[in-house]
């Protein structure tokens, strides 16, 4: 394996880890705004370790939803990682039960994208491990910073935080709506549908249920196409 490729992989993996880690601040703050304490926020980052599901869980709890609704929406978003795992098996070839149990914890958007984008299998493994390690460390550290920072806020700063939380969700959603994303127009249609369903149901269903019910908007995506599926790296573009 050539050394320039190896250092490029390392550089990209560490750089991505630092960039994504910033989201950890927003997550920690969102968890605090939803009424979770520091240890609950940190447990989510350490144990769940998949950003969109973590945001969904605290988002539903923050909206007054039940634990069941919160866990349900986290699991719906977590199904993505199952598909990523299937794509990663040929690259990472995790042999044995223990190796697989360890590998599974780091199967997320970013590690999948980096492993799939690497030029060969050895670098795929390296990219997966280094991206996983750098994101895991920064994400957990930044979660603590966000949760502690938000806990000290009051009055006007609290109002600022209330406005930051939906903005953080929008930032999470935004890449899927951009023109470069595969089937961006369909993604937009589904997104608008999901928002409309959630708002329409808000007055009539228990808090949190409207978020899960919004998955019916996936029907707006229509039938599967015969064309090839996008790779995870394209999905992150």
């Amino acid at each position, binding site marked *: 394996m050539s050394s320039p490729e190896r250092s490029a992989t390392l550089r990209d993996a560490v750089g991505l880890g630092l*960039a994504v880690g*910033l989201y950890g601040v927003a997550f920690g703050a969102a968890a605090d705004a939803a009424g979770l*304490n520091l240890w609950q926020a940190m*447990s*989510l980052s350490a*144990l*769940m370790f998949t950003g*969109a599901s973590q945001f*969904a869980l605290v988002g*539903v*709890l*923050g909206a*007054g939803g039940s*634990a069941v609704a*919160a*866990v349900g*929406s*986290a*699991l719906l*978003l*977590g*199904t*993505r990682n*199952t*598909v990523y*795992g*299937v794509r990663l*098996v040929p690259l990472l070839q995790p042999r044995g039960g223990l190796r697989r149990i360890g*590998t*599974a914890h780091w199967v997320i958007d970013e590690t999948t994208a980096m492993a799939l984008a690497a030029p060969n299998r050895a670098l795929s493994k390296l990219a997966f491990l280094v991206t996983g390690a750098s994101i895991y460390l920064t994400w957990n550290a930044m979660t603590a910073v966000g949760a502690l920072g938000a806990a000290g806020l009051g009055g006007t*700063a609290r*109002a*600022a*935080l*209330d*406005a*930051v*939380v*939906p*903005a*953080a*969700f*929008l*930032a999470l*959603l*935004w890449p899927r*709506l951009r023109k470069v994303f595969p*089937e961006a127009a369909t*993604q937009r249609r589904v997104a608008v*549908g*999901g*928002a409309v369903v*959630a*708002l329409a149901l808000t007055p009539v269903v228990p808090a949190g249920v*409207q*978020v899960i019910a919004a998955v019916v*908007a*996936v029907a707006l*995506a229509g039938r*599967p196409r015969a064309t090839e599926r996008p790779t995870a790296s394209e999905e992150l573009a």
Partner: protein
Amino acid sequence: MSGTGLWAAVLAGSLGCYLLKLAGLSVPSAWVEQPWVARIVDFVPAALLAALVAVQAATSGQHLVLDGRLVGLAVAALALALRAPFIVVLLLAGAAGALVHVLAG
């Protein structure tokens, strides 16, 4: 919600999300790589994240509410459209929310 209820959600959600990851590495790929499964999984995030944006920005309990959060969201959308970095998007949204809070007194 009680501390116990929150912990239950945290731990059950974490275990479930981990098992979903583990399943991908463990089940035969043919189970997952079906067109309909892939279709649904590809579009669930858009529907759910958009629902969360709407609920976080414009509801309070079972009521639709218009306040500084929606102004912050509009500012965030503009910043994202202009390719602002993530942290700038959040700071601008927070500043807008705080400003509305102060003005509305």
